[in-house]
């Protein structure tokens, strides 16, 4: 595919969420952004995409044919695993190790719960088959693959109605030959079966995690392939002729083929879009270090942006038994944007616990019945109810006035469940709920930041999500953040993030050795082959190798430790002469994370990653939203700021003039959210209509 001038590329981001499908169209020539929102359709979400697409295009007089790149993110994969709606999947593994997938790591995620439930494996015992073969840790074949047994087993499981096969053999990260041969047998003799090889999905040491990821990939493969081909068809029918890219969990884009092969990469595409949007706005505002804070209806998430890059982790779990309990899900070692999630959202329920103390969340009233103030039958007090009672929210302008809130119901719920039992006023109780949820979020964010050896005081906070801007002021103050930013377009933020994510692919190889003992010729060969693979992938996606960037990352540790840290290495050509530079990079990163160093202990590399990425999109958005009021000041309302009510000015965000400075306390309303600014904040609206709040 020929390359067009970047200026002519019309880019469209589409994010399918549980309730809404969001669209963002970027016209680079004018720098204009156009936003669209439509209901997600069930069971076929492509209908919703089509609706939204046609609506957006006709509204702005554009045609689908003008779109050169379309980027898509979806919760399809996540939901299929949570709801266990994947294909009937079998596992082929080394004989004697069929139960590894069920045995797991033998650890409890909650040490005080007698009634603990462990997640059931995606492949039941009856569909796990051992194959006679064995490879040693060095990659040496100890027992050859019994191909006849493979064929016999595959035949049997086709008869059982199995549609997908996961293949995960011991040490296949060191020598994938047996897995590859099984793949070949499936492709040639059982072409109807979808299959995933662990050496392709997650070629890393640690058999349980690798098998779990591979089983999960196989499990969602048939449904993802079906969905993606359907999507291609409907988009083609609608006149789309450009490149279709898919957002993955690490804030990178992949192709339809890439997504179809490794659908587990899509698990966290929506949240990743949020962080990438943070990077986008950070670039506009020249902020390289940010905490992206996203608070919605049931959860709050925080992620760190350092040097304009998301923090990536390889530890992720899908489908947790207990949503906020680490370790209660199925592990997937894929690169994901590192994020903490806690049960603190607008719908989080406040209650008095068995100690008689106020507690907020993690239980949520969700959208049904929703907070008491929604007047849909919920009578338990939530964070949104407290925010309404305090005057932070406007009962007549929730979601731009499309939804009327009941202050009376909110007051009644807080009175009944909190204020009356504690013998305090309704306002004091509401203030307590607001403070406590902020405290919980700040605590979680602080632990997350400190875990990385970073100092919260050096990070500006970027807030989004429906409830984010309502709470961010107090959370940012708790973290001693110097600045708070509430970006424009908060309602379609993930889709916006898609537009700035680079197309990229990460190749992985485990090669465990101390730096002193590395066979550099061998390593260089591995790195070159991974680079070549990555370049070929990008070439297929339309990025010529002259425009690709290659980054080598090694997961390293001091020999004897169990956790590795990922370290970006200088350059991609490595040899024995690189040892001092690699050592320096590792020790720098180690010191940063842990505040100390371990001189004299050998450094060991475990996994090598090569990230090949395409160019970044340069965006220069201009305002494209027009408001209805003529004056930014909408009026004043009574707001309870902890001790007493204060008449607080309320502004219309869409009418704020660039450069206009407003001292807190004040409230700024917009369609999707409300920004609260206390007395220690001064807000300025910048040229892109972002709110920048300096905190003192």
């Amino acid at each position, binding site marked *: 595919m020929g390359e067009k001038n970047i200026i002519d590329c019309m880019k469209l981001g589409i994010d399918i969420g549980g309730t809404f499908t969001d669209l963002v169209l970027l016209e680079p020539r004018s720098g204009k952004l156009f936003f669209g929102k439509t209901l997600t359709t069930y069971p076929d979400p492509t209908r919703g995409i089509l609706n939204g697409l046609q609506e957006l295009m006709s509204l702005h007089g554009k045609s689908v044919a003008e779109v050169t790149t379309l980027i898509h993110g979806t919760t399809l994969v996540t939901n299929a695993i949570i709801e266990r709606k994947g294909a009937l999947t079998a596992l082929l593994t080394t004989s*004697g*190790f069929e*139960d*590894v997938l*069920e*045995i*797991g*790591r*033998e*650890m*409890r995620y909650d*040490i*005080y719960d*007698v*009634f*603990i*439930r*462990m997640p059931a494996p995606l492949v039941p*015992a009856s569909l796990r088959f051992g194959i006679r073969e064995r490879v*040693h*840790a060095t990659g040496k074949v*100890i027992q050859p693959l019994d191909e006849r047994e493979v064929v016999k087993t595959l035949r049997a499981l086709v008869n059982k109605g199995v549609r997908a096969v996961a293949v995960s053999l*011991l*040490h296949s990260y060191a020598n994938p030959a047996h897995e590859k041969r099984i793949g070949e047998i499936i492709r040639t003799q059982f072409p109807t079966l979808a299959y995933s090889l662990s050496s392709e999905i997650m070629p890393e*040491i*640690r*058999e*349980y*995690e690798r098998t779990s990821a591979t089983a999960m990939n196989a499990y969602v493969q048939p449904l993802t392939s079906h969905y993606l081909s359907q999507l291609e068809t409907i988009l083609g029918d609608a006149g789309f002729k450009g490149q279709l890219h898919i957002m993955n969990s690490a804030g990178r884009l992949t192709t339809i083929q890439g997504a179809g092969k490794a659908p587990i990469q899509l698990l966290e595409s929506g949240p990743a879009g949020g962080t990438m949007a943070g990077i986008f706005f950070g670039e506009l505002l020249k902020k390289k270090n940010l905490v992206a804070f996203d608070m919605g209806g049931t959860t709050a998430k925080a992620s760190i942006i350092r040097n304009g890059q998301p923090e990536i982790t390889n530890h992720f779990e899908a489908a947790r038994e207990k949503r906020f309990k680490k370790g209660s899900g199925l592990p997937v070692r894929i690169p994901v944007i590192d994020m903490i999630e806690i049960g603190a959202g607008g719908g989080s329920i406040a209650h008095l*616990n*068995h*100690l*008689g*103390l*106020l*507690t907020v969340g993690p239980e949520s009233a969700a959208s049904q019945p929703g907070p008491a103030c929604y007047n849909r039958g919920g009578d338990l007090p939530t964070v949104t109810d407290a925010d309404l009672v305090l005057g932070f929210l406007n009962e007549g302008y929730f979601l731009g006035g499309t939804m009327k809130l009941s202050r009376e119901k909110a007051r009644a719920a807080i009175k009944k469940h909190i204020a009356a039992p*504690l013998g*305090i006023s309704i306002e*004091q109780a509401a203030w*307590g709920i607001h*403070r*406590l949820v902020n*405290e919980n979020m700040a*605590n979680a964010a*602080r*632990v997350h930041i*400190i*875990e990385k050896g970073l100092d919260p005081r050096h990070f500006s906070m970027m807030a989004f999500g429906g409830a984010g801007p309502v709470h961010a002021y107090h959370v940012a103050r708790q973290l001693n953040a110097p600045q708070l930013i509430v970006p424009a377009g908060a309602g379609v933020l993930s889709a916006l993030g898609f537009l700035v994510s680079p197309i990229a692919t990460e190749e992985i190889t485990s090669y*465990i050795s101390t730096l002193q003992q590395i066979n550099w010729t061998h390593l260089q060969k591995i790195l070159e082959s991974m680079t070549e693979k990555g370049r070929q992938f990008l070439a297929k996606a339309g990025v010529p190798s002259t425009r690709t960037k290659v980054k080598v990352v090694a997961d390293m540790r*001091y020999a*004897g*430790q*169990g*956790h590795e840290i990922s370290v970006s290495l200088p350059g991609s050509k490595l040899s024995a002469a690189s040892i001092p530079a690699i050592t320096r990079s590792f020790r720098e990163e180690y010191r940063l994370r*842990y*505040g*100390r160093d*371990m001189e*004299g*202990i050998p450094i060991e590399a475990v996994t090598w990653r090569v990230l090949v990425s395409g160019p970044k999109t340069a965006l220069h958005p201009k305002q494209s939203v027009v408001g209805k009021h003529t004056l930014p000041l909408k009026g004043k309302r009574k707001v309870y700021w902890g001790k007493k009510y204060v008449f607080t000015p309320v502004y219309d965000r869409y009418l704020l003039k660039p450069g206009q400075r407003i001292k807190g306390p004040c409230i700024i309303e917009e369609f999707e959210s409300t920004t609260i600014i206390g007395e220690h904040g001064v807000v300025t609206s910048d040229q892109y209509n972002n709110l920048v709040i300096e905190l003192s």
Partner: protein
Amino acid sequence: MSMKRKKSSLTFDAIELSILWSRLISLVDEAGTTLQRTAFSSVTRESADFAVVLMDTKGQSLAQSSVSVPSFLGVMPFLVKALIKDHFPLPTWKEGDVVITNDPWLCAGHKPDIGIVTPIFRKKKLIGFIGCIAHSPDIGGTLWGAGARDFYEEGLYLPPMKLFDGGVRNETIFLLISSNVRASRQTIGDILAQVAANDQGIRGLHRMMDENNLDTIDELGASIIQSSEKAMRDAIRKAPDGVYRSVYHADGDGIKEAIQFVCTLTIRGDEIEVDYDGTSPAHSLAINAVLNYVFAYTAYPIKCVFSPEVPNNEGSFRPIRVTAPEGCLLNAKKPSPLGARNVTGNLLHGPVMKALSQAVPDQVQADCGAAVWVMVLSGRRNDGSEYVEYLFLAGGYGGRKGLAGPPTLCYPTNVANVPIEVFEHDAPVLVTEKSLIKGSGGTGKYPGGDGQRFAYKNIGTLPIHISNVTEKINHQAYGLLGGSSGKKGNLYVRTAAGKKRFTPPKGHDYLQPGEELVMELPGGGGYGKPKG
């Protein structure tokens, strides 16, 4: 006392208390996180075998890091109270002091667990203590296991001493430690990480006190302790009063010196008393436990049953008393060897749950295929380099009302297994099987979880030294309310010629080249009568 309570509950209302309390837990968690991530000790890191505890000036605990194994329940306050009483009276503490000790009777029952205590000063006044305890990479002596013959073979003993005196490093102690342990850099590194974790906790506390205009933590502490104690007492009060007895048999050495636990659990009003009179005397193997460790593993199942969600602090344990005759297996004295006291501690939930099942049958679980088996392998690879590998393996979990027991799950301690691929990479072994033993869990309406078979072969040219600590080779995990017992475990070596040979269930042995060690872990007990 009642006057003071009233005052403190006035000082902190339900909202204030909730906010400040979660902040305290958050700041000890921050300290704990850093400690866990920087530790060399695989036990500290992988199994969260550490705790950071914030205490008031009386040594009463206010907050404990939430990721932590049961071994440390109540241990740190016990230590600090003893330090104040017998070693360093309150007026002698200076800013910049740091005390170190691994005294098993003051800390967690064996020498590898090192306690580090730092006083907290605010405006030149002592306002409390922060302490952490963690499993060190090495402490000298024989390798960890049940094999030591007495206390002195178990390595370096560190009585309570000032590691830092008013901010000045005591180089003598550092030199002494580094000259007496294997992997001295890692061991010293971990000790310094503990010191740093305390400092981080102190910084977090000052920040929190600054923001909230607090000068002391006494009032806040009193409120926290008071409400936790009340919650625990309320929960116990719901259980029927009575004296509940249980007798529990276990392997001991698995050959000729079996052990028995006799547990008399008395629920009286809102208090629980557990007495172990009748339990076996101290054992010749290093499986003896000290009383504060026994307290931790007795209080743990009680907490699981009655108030799993009350945060750990002084108050939650006040209503529990634990006693055992002096010199017995559960109240061992010098010079009894203590190294593998974990296997004994890990069995105590058995007799405790069995006694509790008579009072609150709906809230307990049937016995688990515990204790977790620990195997330490050491030796040289073909190229002459040394290795030491720890293996942890779990049996089946017990059935509970409404739920079958999951297979292969740790209880009561919590340790991740070592991945096969990592194990084979680190040591000259080939794992030949890791699979569930179908039907090894006891039957029942809610069956017990299955145990596992794990076998590996020495594929090197040199013998591998193995230290075995197994359990339930001769005894079964009991079922409850009509559920049947789980299957026993089994342990043997298959020689190169294919013959079975004996290897001690607890103790040392050599696995010769070509020999295979086969471990069959016990299943959990079933709960309730099976249908039909």
